[in-house]
């Protein structure tokens, strides 16, 4: 019956129907319906997302999806952000570019996260894809402005060049001049991560001036405050703007010029940058504040009173990133002024100081949870927390989807009762039924993991540090969290038992990271042998794991599912656990 239905539509019609289906999940589901749908779907799939570049090989992707126009790849595990993954671990994009250069001549978009990108890769991109439009390098590294010059020079229809948070060898600001005068297609340019103090400002100005569709522009620190007005006047249609330096001696003409320039940007909704802010220049923003939905002040070392003044002008704010200079008082103001707030991130201004330098406590977060009914996503660094506060937050905000709390000192107990924070985090997972991402901190026993396993049914990503008492903790998570995709653990007493007992679970997840835990080398080998669809990588920079007894714990362990088998680009300090006797290296 169903077969008849499938054949009753010509392929072109099905293709047309499928073209309305954009989500990867849905596309994957479509391809499972029947062989013919699979066949039609794979020929018209234009976008591919590969969450782990080692889960599949470039050739396999190309074989299955021959007509891809847009690819998104992620490389290193998340803990690489905190220097836990040694340099040279992997995540190289060059092999992918090399294969796609031949197979996808019409590739338009490449989006990479945590990958190693070389100038050679960039030059290959510039050469190979005639209709290249979008390059997003999120937290990447390994390239220089020379590679960017190649992209700028060759990509005639470039729409997006976004280098957010990447580490770039900034050799000279001159690369901007490589954009030909004929390039007018830019929609988004983010160079905020470039660290040098030179930028070819005139080239930048001209580029901005000739791209009428430019919507998003994020400058770097090299652009001084007095130059901002010039840029803005050339691009009044901007929706998202990242300032450079926002500090200068207060001069009335500079101020009024700046204020005027900002007020001419009627579409501006999002601001970021703000390195070195002089508070006296903040009122220049007041005219656009009522429209602002996103504000990133996480580099701005301005104090609470100035922050409060600014924030109180932004009633439509949906997203705020800020340093803990905001203090509890600032967050209370935020809670009363910004009823549309959905996302809040509070970063520490003095993370390595022994004592608190600001008055930011759990109270600030409680206030926001009470006052902002749409709050969904939280990242909060603080120095003390209580179960009572966490329970209150959970009850106030059951709509939370992301909750990442970092109490700066590891194993800090509830400051009121001195008990572990199990109950508090338990309340979070119990009440917030749509919680997808959770990061734990503070003093925690196996109980918290019991709560998480019981209630965290939608949890996709969990980050754990300095927590738990025994394997039971890990077992609760692996056996209970049905939606778990990514689990990252450091410095916890989790060992072999839970891991081996839940080996099958690991094939349903993207990856598991465990460092400074208690998983033995023997268990890693066993896992590697028994589970051919997992790559079990042992990372140890000091000595090979087999130079010690098998019962010794490994330093770092990264397990991920893969249909590509073990990789062969590993550095000397990474071993993949493999077949019975030998260790692949």
């Amino acid at each position, binding site marked *: 019956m169903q077969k008849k239905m499938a054949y009753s539509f010509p392929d072109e019609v099905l293709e047309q129907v499928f073209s309305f289906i954009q989500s990867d999940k849905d596309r994957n589901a479509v391809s499972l319906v029947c062989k013919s749908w699979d066949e039609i779907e794979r020929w018209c799939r234009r976008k591919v997302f590969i969450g782990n570049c080692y889960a599949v090989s470039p050739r396999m992707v190309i074989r299955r999806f021959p007509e891809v126009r847009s690819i998104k790849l992620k490389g290193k595990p998340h803990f690489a952000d905190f*220097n836990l993954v040694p340099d040279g671990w992997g995540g190289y994009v060059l092999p992918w570019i090399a294969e796609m250069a031949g197979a996808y001549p019409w590739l338009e978009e490449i989006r990479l996260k945590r990958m190693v990108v070389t100038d050679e890769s960039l030059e290959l991109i510039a050469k190979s894809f005639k209709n290249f439009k979008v390059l997003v390098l999120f937290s990447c590294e390994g390239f220089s402005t020379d590679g960017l010059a190649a992209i700028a020079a060759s990509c005639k229809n470039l729409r997006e060049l976004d280098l957010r948070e990447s580490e770039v060898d900034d050799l000279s600001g001159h690369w901007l001049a490589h954009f030909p005068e004929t390039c007018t297609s830019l929609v988004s340019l983010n160079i905020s991560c470039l660290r040098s103090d030179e930028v070819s400002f005139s080239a930048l100005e001209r580029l901005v001036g000739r791209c009428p569709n430019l919507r998003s522009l994020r400058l770097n620190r090299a652009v001084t405050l007095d130059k901002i007005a010039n840029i803005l006047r050339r691009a009044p249609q901007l929706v998202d703007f990242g300032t450079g330096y926002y500090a200068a001696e207060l001069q009335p003409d500079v101020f009024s010029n700046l204020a005027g320039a900002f007020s001419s940007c009627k579409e501006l909704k999002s601001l970021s940058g703000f390195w070195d802010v002089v508070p006296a220049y903040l009122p220049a923003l007041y005219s656009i504040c009522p429209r602002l939905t996103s504000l990133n002040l996480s580099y701005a070392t301005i104090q609470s009173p100035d922050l409060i003044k600014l924030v109180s002008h932004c009633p439509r704010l949906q997203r705020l990133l800020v340093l803990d200079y905001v203090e509890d008082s600032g967050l209370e103001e935020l809670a009363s002024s910004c009823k549309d707030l959905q996302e809040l991130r509070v970063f520490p201004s003095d993370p390595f100081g022994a004592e608190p330098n600001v008055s930011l406590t759990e109270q600030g977060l409680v206030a926001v949870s009470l006052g902002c009914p749409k709050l969904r996503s939280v990242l909060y*660094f603080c120095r003390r927390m209580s179960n009572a506060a966490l329970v209150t937050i959970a009850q106030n905000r059951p709509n939370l989807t992301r909750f990442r709390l970092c109490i*700066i000192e590891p194993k800090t107990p509830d400051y009121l009762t001195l008990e572990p924070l199990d109950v508090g985090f338990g309340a979070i997972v119990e009440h917030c039924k749509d919680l997808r991402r959770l990061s734990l901190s503070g003093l925690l026993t196996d109980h918290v993991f019991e709560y998480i396993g019981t209630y965290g049914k939608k949890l996709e990503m969990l980050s754990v540090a300095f927590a738990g008492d025994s394997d039971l903790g890990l077992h609760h998570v692996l056996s209970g969290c049905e939606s778990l995709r990514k689990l990252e653990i450091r410095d916890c007493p989790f060992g072999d038992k839970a891991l081996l007992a839940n080996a099958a679970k690991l094939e349903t997840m993207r990856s598991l990271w465990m460092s400074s835990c208690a998983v033995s080398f023997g268990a890693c080998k066993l896992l590697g042998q028994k589970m051919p669809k997992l790559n079990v990588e042992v990372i140890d920079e*000091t000595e090979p794991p087999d130079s010690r007894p098998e019962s010794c714990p490994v330093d770092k362990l990264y397990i991920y599912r893969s249909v590509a088998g073990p990789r062969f680009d590993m550095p000397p300090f990474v071993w993949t656990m493999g077949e019975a006797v030998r260790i692949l290296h």
Partner: protein
Amino acid sequence: MEGSVGCDNDLNLRATELRLGLPGTEPVSIVRSNKRSLQQVADDDCGVNGCKSDDQNETAPPPPKAQIVGWPPIRSYRKNNIQTKKNESEGGGIYVKVSMDGAPYLRKIDLKIYSGYPELLQAIENMFKFTIGEYSEREGYKGSDYAPTYEDKDGDWMLVGDVPWEMFITSCKRLRIMKGSEARGLGCGV
């Protein structure tokens, strides 16, 4: 492959240890040893000398506030940003008052411009025209009537030179060059 008695190169661990982090950053001391001392590991059937943590580490008190790799979880570029801010926001320096017993007025110096104790003490010597003497951990400053002291964040008067330089400049609130019997009392390992 086999044959090693324990999984610790306990004697020379520090010397051969690779450390994580960019060159030029402060060395990180405890992480590797910390993980060995986990309860779980101690309970494992690792064999006689197996995976017990470094003995030295178990009995010695933990060093004060050593940084843990990757904690708190902040991206490097943020950390770098904070560091730059700290250096800049202090107006480019950490100015502290320096008083000398018997001197009619105080001076102020910028601790940031010195890279270590020798330069600082040399500068103070030049400023007040005196000599401080040789520093030793055991006996403080010998060979002089003077002892350089500082008031720390807790309000205690400490002998200059005992703590690492970086810790000193962040905790020093003011300096005082003590003279005479008071000074000798401080310096003599009593």
